[in-house]
């Protein structure tokens, strides 16, 4: 009685396909729909310095600096690694971030995400498997109040805007790494609205 569908191909449910790792519902693994308004730091790109985007920003490469800032969304993809503070409307992390994150709307750490730092946002969502170490400030007073004692002011507070040259891209490499905005075999695209600033 329990196997009445056995052998009936029509009525049998389709065999489950091998499941690839499920994409995180909170974090798109593809570029956001409006790709033309998304600047990307591609896989294999390493930037040392500050990044300011006038559009959405997707980081698949490496950013090391004081700040990554966008008035829109910032997504750190699974391959992305950011060692800097991030400030944006929505921040989604599927890769690694070491730094403070301020989201004026929401911060999401996906199941593959690893974050070490302090998060300030009205809403914070951790997905099962996300690794987080630090503090979470939800529905807070102004962001500036939440900086930890002794923390250095970030580029997000301190006038990185003055050098915004959107829509052109400027970059200044930090000699220490010699990589900054230079390509290292990966995808290098000059994105409208993306500003890079030496660290």
């Amino acid at each position, binding site marked *: 009685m329990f196997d009445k569908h056995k052998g009936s191909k029509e009525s049998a449910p389709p065999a489950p396909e091998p499941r690839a790792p499920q994409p995180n519902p909170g974090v798109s693994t593809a570029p956001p729909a409006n790709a033309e308004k998304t600047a990307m730091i591609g896989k294999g790109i390493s930037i040392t310095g500050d990044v300011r985007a006038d559009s959405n920003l997707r980081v698949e490469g490496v950013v090391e600096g004081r700040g990554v800032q966008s008035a829109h969304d910032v997504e750190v993809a699974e391959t992305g690694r950011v060692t800097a503070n991030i400030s944006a409307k929505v921040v989604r992390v599927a890769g690694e971030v070491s730094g403070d994150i301020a989201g004026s709307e929401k911060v999401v750490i996906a199941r593959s995400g690893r974050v070490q730092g302090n998060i300030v946002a009205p809403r914070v*969502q951790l997905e099962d498997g996300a690794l987080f*170490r630090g*503090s979470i400030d*939800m529905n807070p007073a102004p962001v500036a109040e939440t900086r930890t004692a002794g923390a250095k002011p970030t580029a997000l507070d301190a006038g990185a805007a003055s050098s915004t040259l959107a829509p052109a891209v400027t970059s200044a490499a930090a000699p220490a790494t010699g990589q900054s905005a230079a390509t290292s075999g990966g995808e290098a695209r000059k994105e409208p609205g993306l500003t890079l600033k030496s660290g």
Partner: protein
Amino acid sequence: MSGAALQFDAVAGPPRVGAVAARLDSKLFGSLFQTVDVDRRLTVLEIGSALPETVDFFAQFKCRLLFVDLFSEPFVHDQADLSETELRHCFEERFRFPADTRLDLCLFWDFLSYLDDPALRAFNSALRPWLHRGSRAHGFGAHHLGIRLANVRYGVRDRETLNIRERGGRQLRTHPHSQLEMQEMLNCFAFERGLLLADGRLEMLLKPQV
């Protein structure tokens, strides 16, 4: 993050979160919220790593969540090799919060039963400066000393229910303390309420020692 940024890789980090294995009905956890003013901004210390349901639960409050995962700290695993002073310095280093921080709620879970006597006294000393008269804490102790603790972590599902998830990695050695010992060594807190659980643990609600 300020100062002593610990890298996940450097300390093995909190293991990936296991699925919810069980639920625990808690008669005392909800009491935490009866004595604090939930309309103002809460500061919550959790001794452990962040779990999704805990963050979701506290999202209903205006709050600051401080996650200090002492379970994965090497110095806690090696506590027997360290003096009380050294341990206190280690705890103080992990509790380096902004100077104006005052903890409203402390969630200890099973952590206190993983500290030997010097470590518990050191923990007490390091925590004390961050408490205020309205602070409250919740945790589990032991009501018989032969207790074996499961290697689990806790998430807050709601005011009456805790999620229990398996904790990966090496389990800390258990050091159960009687209620009297606990009161002597964790003297920044006094027992407000206690509830014996069937598995030999004591669910505790603590208030600051006046």
